[in-house]
């Protein structure tokens, strides 16, 4: 059984497809990184799963049940665009409203629990409008966590957060998946952060899923490369191109792809009179992989 199974899902606005016959599979217990450029259909897909938008066609199944089943939807927590809180009410009041909405009998206890998870135990009496962006995002997560959700849908939860805010958010997400066994669907532009937590990825472009891959598979596919800097970059690059098939100058350094022995490169360059100021063994990250994939799709 999968947490989310989407088949041929479509949604159009004024005749333009925002989601175009999309297929998607999120395994139970996964942290699914949903990646795509602006306007690629990530948020629309998430809104469709949450029942905020009515699809033109296709099916959405959550834990083997139709997504309109009240039993499964009551176990979905979402943070889509903003936390959806009343600005004039306190953090506690906003959480209490959601606890009542979910029919939780131990509302106060649950609120304490989720505030602890998002590290906001001392901020319950703050008015929502007086909270910082990072706090608001964490309140959104706390709202989504109320009532033992089996599935969390988080739309760009780390957008606009500072480094510390991102770190806290990352820790929270790992904590809730490990401790509570939640399946998490998370979309983000900050691929470096996503890479640290995701177990699966889905890459969407122009409303269509172009690739679904597990983090393990991604890791095995990721290309190795050696990056280096010399005094004469152009000459060194030309020299390396004679010996290696894929040599590029990127980000102010020379990259030798599919090479895994820095000593051999150092030896080769030094014998030809080059002085190396820096050399590193690297692996292509999610961000580079994504850019590469997009370039291929655009036919670059």
């Amino acid at each position: 059984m999968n947490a989310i199974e989407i088949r041929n899902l479509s949604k159009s606005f004024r005749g333009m497809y925002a989601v175009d016959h999309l297929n998607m599979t999120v395994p139970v217990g996964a942290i699914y990184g949903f990646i795509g450029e602006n306007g690629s259909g990530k948020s629309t897909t998430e809104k469709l799963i949450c029942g905020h938008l009515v699809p033109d066609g296709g099916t959405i199944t959550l834990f083997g049940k139709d997504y309109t089943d009240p039993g499964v939807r009551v176990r979905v927590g979402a943070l889509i665009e903003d936390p959806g809180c009343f600005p004039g009410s306190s953090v506690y009041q906003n959480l209490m409203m959601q606890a009542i909405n979910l029919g939780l009998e131990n509302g106060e206890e649950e609120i304490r629990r989720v505030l602890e998870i998002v590290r906001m135990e001392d901020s319950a009496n703050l008015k929502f409008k007086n909270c910082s962006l990072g706090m608001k995002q964490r309140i959104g997560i706390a709202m989504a966590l109320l009532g033992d959700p089996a599935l969390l849908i988080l739309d760009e939860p780390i957008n606009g957060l500072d480094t510390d805010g991102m770190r806290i958010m990352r820790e929270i997400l790992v904590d809730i998946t490990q401790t509570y066994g939640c399946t998490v669907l998370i979309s983000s532009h900050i691929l470096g952060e996503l890479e640290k937590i995701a177990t699966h990825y889905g890459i969407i472009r122009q409303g269509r899923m172009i690739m679904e891959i597990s983090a393990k598979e991604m890791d095995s596919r990721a290309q190795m490369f050696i990056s280096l800097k010399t005094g004469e970059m152009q000459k060194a690059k030309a020299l390396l191109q004679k010996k290696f098939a894929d040599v590029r100058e990127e980000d102010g350094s020379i990259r030798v792809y599919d090479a895994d022995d820095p000593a051999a490169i150092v030896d080769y360059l030094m014998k030809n009179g080059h002085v190396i100021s820096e050399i590193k063994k690297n692996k292509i990250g999610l961000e580079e992989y994504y850019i590469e994939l997009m370039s291929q799709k655009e036919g670059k």
Partner: protein
Amino acid sequence: METKRELKFESPSFSKRLKGMLGVDFYRLFHTPMFYIFLVIAAIIPAMVSAMTTMPDANGNKMEPLYSNVWQIIAASEPLYVVNSIADYANMNMVFIFGGIMVSIFIGHDYKSGYVKQLFTTHAKKQDYMMSKSIVCAFAMVCMCITYLIGGTIGGVLAGYSLEVNVGSLILAILGKMIMSFGWASLYTFLNIIFRKYFGVSIASSFFFGTGILIIGIAAIVENLSLPTSFLNLFLYGSSVNACLVSGIPTLLICAAVSAAWAVIYNVLGTRILSKSDVY
């Protein structure tokens, strides 16, 4: 992939779902100043109207009193579908205008704050939303009827109006108007669902329908043509006007039937619109 707990998905019953949604709406109602402000407005307006009707004019001459007793501020002496003066209009029916504005703000906040996303994520059935809003807003209007009664009575007594009345008819008239609140609240909820993306239009439409201007217009035509006016009782405004100081049990039954019928119609239509269209 291994899960750390057993996944169970029990469908909540209709009553449990409605209880949850009602709980949130009542919590919101009692925890926001708006409700209390409207209660005060509903009390002050009739008190002010009573006081103003007995104030001297610019030359210091005492004005002809608009009412003959206190209770005409609460309900008209007889069903007055056509309004000839402000006194004909200024009775408990004004609560339905205040209520319309309050419902627009109440539902508007759901959408403006984005809280509606939380509600619709966990409530797959849109019927829960329609019913809950109709019930809570009807309750708020009933409370406004009570503060209107208090304000109107105090204002009327201070203005020196007589307290003489057929108590039974007065009680039936007040109960009739309170019962009509459910139909009105359903209408306003429905209007606010239609115009959910346009807050200003929601308020304007609620105000427009709340004044009963359409029925007043039809009533004027009907009266000019010397046709019977009783069919106007089939509408919310007509039935609300019919609940007056000569009301009997049949009036109350008509109010209950009309209010319930329109509430069902608007709830069914509103649920259908919400189910077939995007939330925002």
